[in-house]
């Protein structure tokens, strides 16, 4: 191995080819940035020209409309309910799919490959596109919302669960198989006890994502507090918008704090 000496006579910490790779990556990244900038036609003049309106617009939002509080909480409950329904459905479906898909528990390689392919497809489609596709098929409303949230949960859970299952020691399966236990018995008695803590962790991480997705879905018309928000924005009722954003903010913060407490409890 040759030692790479820089022009100034000092020993370099990377080989020539490593330095070359880093250089090419840097040039490529800068190039892409410049190309992107020119392609999106940033109209900087118009942007700067409108900056003077910011204080005025901000002042419009400096009020809270309390009369909608009751209705907003009702709609918030709808949003959370949609998220929870999707979480539960997606979780249960993924539980089955993940055991069928994980390398060490899959009863059939073909089925496993099919499930993994399907899940990768779901994950490859950006969530918002997935949601719009399902809305186009099922129409606006809670059914479409729960369906699309469930699908994206399945994409998330099946991959996460399967990777947890694959981390399990195959020796455990061997000892269960040796007693004459069936596939289901091995899953229930051998795997569940070991993977459940990780699965619960995945579910709690997903809970936050699911609720925020559910609210975003509302914005494009699925119902819940998101729908209320988009209506308020369209009709320029700034005080209502502020109220709704505040409620959403407090909700997400509360959930995060609660989850952190639960996680701490679970770890001790």
């Amino acid at each position, binding site marked *: 191995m040759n030692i790479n000496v820089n022009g100034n006579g000092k020993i370099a910490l990377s080989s020539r080819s490593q330095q070359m790779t880093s250089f090419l990556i840097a040039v490529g990244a800068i190039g892409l940035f410049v190309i992107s900038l020119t392609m999106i036609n940033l109209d900087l003049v118009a942007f700067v020209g409108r900056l003077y309106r910011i204080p005025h617009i901000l002042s419009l939002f400096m009020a809270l409309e309390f009369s909608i509080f009751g209705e907003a909480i009702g709609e918030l409950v709808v949003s959370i309910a949609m998220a929870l329904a999707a979480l539960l459905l997606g979780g249960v479906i993924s539980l089955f799919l993940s055991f069928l898909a994980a390398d060490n528990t899959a009863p059939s390689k073909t089925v496993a490959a099919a499930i993994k392919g399907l899940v990768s497809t779901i994950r490859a489609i950006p969530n918002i596109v997935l949601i719009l596709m399902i809305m186009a098929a099922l129409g606006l409303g809670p059914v479409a919302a729960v369906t699309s949230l469930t699908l994206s949960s399945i994409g998330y859970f099946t991959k996460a669960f399967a990777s947890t299952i694959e981390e399990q*020691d195959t*020796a*455990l399966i*061997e*000892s*269960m*198989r*040796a*007693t*004459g*236990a*069936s596939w*289901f*018995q091995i899953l*229930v*008695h*051998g795997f569940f*006890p*070991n993977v459940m*803590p990780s699965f619960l962790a995945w579910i709690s991480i997903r809970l936050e994502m699911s609720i925020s997705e559910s609210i975003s879905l509302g914005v494009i018309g699925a119902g819940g507090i998101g729908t209320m928000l988009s209506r308020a924005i369209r009709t320029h009722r700034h005080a209502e918008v502020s109220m709704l954003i505040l409620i959403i903010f407090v909700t997400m913060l509360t959930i995060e704090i609660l989850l952190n407490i639960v996680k701490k409890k679970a770890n001790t």
Partner: protein
Amino acid sequence: MAEANTLLKISNLKKQYSKKEVLKGIDIEIKEGEFVVVIGPSGAGKSTFIRCINRMVDPTHGAIEFGGTDVAKLKGKALREARSNIGMIFQHYNLIGRTNVIKNVLHGRLGHNSFFKTLTGSYSDAEKREALTLLQKVGLGDHIYKKANALSGGQMQRVGICRAMMQDPKLLLADEPIASLDPKSAKVIMDQIHGLVTERNIACIMNLHQVQVAKDYATRIIGIKDGRVVYDGAPADLTEAMIADIYEGKAEEMELKTDNVAVGELAYGV
């Protein structure tokens, strides 16, 4: 024991992994109540051989007659039923770490019970009593509700023994059951396995790499070298020259083996 019936008849057993033939035709007959120890250098095919018997590994060729059927040909439910009559003990114990001790022992009943019965985790009172009796017998009566991963290696192996005994097997397979244990725990484990199989007239096939331990417990020793049986007879007839031949070309392991004999002598007071 002279008139004992044949329990297991293995004929021309072969196993090939992609290119490599690991078992090259093994013929062995095992009678009820025999304590057979398999010795041989590492890579000889001992684990493969023992795992073929309960089909943890599928043999490429040959017959394994056990309980009136050829295990090599079984599939699905019939295979699971055959397995439920063969206990197995592992080097690394293979317990479910987050599950408690008594539940791990009761896993030995899974093959005998239907899925729906075991789904609710409900075992019969007789089964639970049997599990408790076994655990008390191996000195774990005070630990039945402990998580398996909270036990020491020796304790885990005792749970492994109880799990295998819970199957009420006619045959017990053990793949290097003491290889991960200190000499003192190893002796406890060997005594317990030996005691239980003798008391219940269970035939035992065990892989070991400590020749001295094999001589202490076995009623019969089988030497496997490069996928073939090179010794099959009484422990007393196994001479130093034969041992040297079995481990021929594995000088390192000979040393290792000699070390183990030394340790074994300490522990067993030979």
